[in-house]
């Protein structure tokens, strides 16, 4: 930990001082302010809309953080060779990956925490203004949804580290991470469609079935973490769902980082 701490801290400082983070936070805050205006205009299902917009604002800004600040933090190390200042210390490549990732986790947790405070505040203000639309509402579910968003961002960041460990440019890492994000959010639905097609007597090509099955097991199922709908409609979740989703996120992130560390171990940095 004594080796990881300095890497973690400089990664966090480098990230939190990046101007892009202020732009992302500004976008999120504008969305949360817009939440008031939208809820004031629609005058139906206000509670659900307020929760949905607030959670989406945190989720979208978190995604921008991972894609445009997080990826850059590692990619710039490789592109500009700032990695030399780290690896010229008694630090191994796997330690560099883990330390860097912990710094990124700290950055994600800090940023989403502040955005979550504003999200909660916006829901609270709207709830005060229109209390009769919040008869079925649960704060614990909103907080759980915010925690799941944070965990899904950590997982996505771990994947971006895995991609950065073997790609030669930050652009390829960005594209691969975006593909993983899109597949991660849609693979569950596509897999269900393929399964259901058997009952409807539709036979998709075996190649397609195998491809989707492979993607289903290979890519993270990010839809597990998306409980915006449950939070907006106050639909309770079972403790086992919460437990397995948390475990899934932590295990998948750990495996991705372990893979990144393994690949990076033999990477040359000319």
């Amino acid at each position, binding site marked *: 930990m*004594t*080796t990881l*701490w*300095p*890497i973690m*801290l*400089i990664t966090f*400082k*480098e990230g939190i*001082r*990046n101007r892009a983070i202020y732009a992302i936070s500004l976008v999120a805050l504008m969305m949360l302010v817009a939440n008031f205006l939208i809820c004031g205009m629609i005058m139906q299902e206000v509670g659900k809309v307020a929760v949905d917009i607030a959670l989406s604002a945190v989720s979208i800004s978190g995604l921008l953080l991972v894609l445009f600040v997080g990826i850059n933090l590692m990619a710039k190390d490789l592109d*500009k*060779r*700032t990695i*030399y*200042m*780290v*690896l*010229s*210390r*008694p*630090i*191994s490549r796997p*330690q560099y990956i883990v330390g860097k990732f912990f710094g990124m986790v700290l950055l994600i947790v800090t940023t989403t925490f502040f955005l979550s405070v504003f999200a909660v505040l916006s829901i609270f203000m709207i709830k005060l203004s229109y209390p009769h639309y919040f008869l079925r509402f649960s704060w614990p579910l909103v907080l759980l949804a915010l925690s799941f968003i944070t965990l899904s961002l950590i997982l996505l960041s771990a994947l971006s580290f895995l991609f950065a460990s073997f790609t030669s440019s930050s652009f390829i890492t960005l594209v691969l991470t975006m593909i993983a994000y899109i597949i991660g959010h849609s693979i569950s639905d596509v897999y269900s469609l393929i399964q259901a097609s058997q009952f409807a007597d539709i036979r998709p090509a075996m190649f397609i079935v195998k491809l989707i099955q492979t993607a289903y097991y290979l890519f993270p199922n990010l839809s597990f973490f998306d409980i915006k709908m449950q939070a907006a409609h106050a639909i309770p979740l079972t403790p086992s769902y919460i437990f397995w989703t948390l475990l899934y996120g932590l295990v998948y992130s750990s495996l991705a980082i372990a893979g990144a560390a393994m690949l990076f171990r*033999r990477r*040359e*940095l*000319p």
Partner: protein
Amino acid sequence: MIKITGISKDFKIGVGAKQVRALENLDLEVQKGEVFGFLGPNGAGKSTMMKILMNLIFPDKGSASIMGNDVRDRETRRHVGYLPENPYFYDYLTAEELLWFGGRASGLTSVAVKKRTDELLDKVNLRSARKRQLRTYSKGMVQRAGLALALVHDPEVVIFDEPMSGLDPIGRKMVGDLIVELKAGGKTVFFSSHILTDIERFCDRVGIIIRGRLRMVDRLDHLLSTSVGLEDVFMKEVVQAGGEAEA
């Protein structure tokens, strides 16, 4: 102190994977307390050799050790300070934070880092800019911050890749003074340059590398006593290497 045995390194260039030989069967030893100048034209393999010593790239053949430890062992770097060519650091860190990182990552206590930071920032004339983010620094200031970073943990062996690059005459004098001070402190300095006067001023021994091959290693005083100057020796080796390549 530094021992390089039979190091060869090829690089693959382009999609067709054309091989380019960067280093060929390089043998070299640098003794404790010695200032060794690694001289060669651009693309000769100086930086490649230094990156192998820092385990940033791996040799295809051969081995290298510093203070008796294999360079692949991360603990070896606890006693080594490295300044890369044209260093680039984190934009949003200050010089103080940069040195904090360097010191702490090398195992120094917070108190020791603070003391050493004050000393070194004074030495490289960056004390007044210590709280400024590195992105606001000029090229010479970044180079000086890099020098301080390389020395923050008081290493026994110092590897400088083109330390004078981007420095004005005052900066060059400062680096020169630093090298002299390191030598006086019994440190081993291995530095590369293609500026002959720098080599002449500070080195005990010189190695000339051309096209990945170490053409000669000799004491500087011996070289200067037997020829007109280092420039003559260097040019003779360049011409000879060119002739051999054509043949």
